[in-house]
């Protein structure tokens, strides 16, 4: 369980990058982020 938990660290980066670095993403990239998080979790388990 440790690996999936730490594998989700991009969530922190994304939140900080959007709020502090004022990064703006396209709709496709936002969808990509959401799908990537699910993929990272699935790939890191089992």
């Amino acid at each position, binding site marked *: 369980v440790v690996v999936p*938990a730490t594998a989700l660290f991009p969530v922190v980066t994304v939140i900080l*990058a959007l709020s502090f670095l004022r990064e703006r*993403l396209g709709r496709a990239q936002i969808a990509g982020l959401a799908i990537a998080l699910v993929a990272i979790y699935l790939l890191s388990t089992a």
Partner: protein
Amino acid sequence: MNMPYSWIFFAAIALVFWGITGVTQKLATNRISSELSFLWFAYAMIAISVVLAATVTVHWQVRPFIFWLAVAGGTLNGLGALTSFKALESGGKASIVISLISLFPLLTVAFGVLALHEKLSLGQGVGVLLAIVAAILLSLEPAAL
């Protein structure tokens, strides 16, 4: 330290620290070269290593195979860090670059299946497909931002 659930504490710290480092790396490469950013990154690692070696009891005698495994891990990790700095320096957004890089378990799973002949679980199979879709979507830069 083997207290029950202490792993949650350490995992949470890693989650926060690695999450923050994506932004600090982006800020650094906005102002200095990726090479210099990496060097300071590496010096910070060395400083931590020196403190660790001086304060924690470690058993240095290990089998050569284990030693070279650890060295390979450090080398690949370092080279990965250097190329991630390059990606950020080249204009990649921290939110996108770090998320894209985080799909690396895709390669770990692929290596397991192709080289070690491991069976792919249903969850991992779905994960592989989603990771490919995510990588494509993440690499799509909006036309006008």
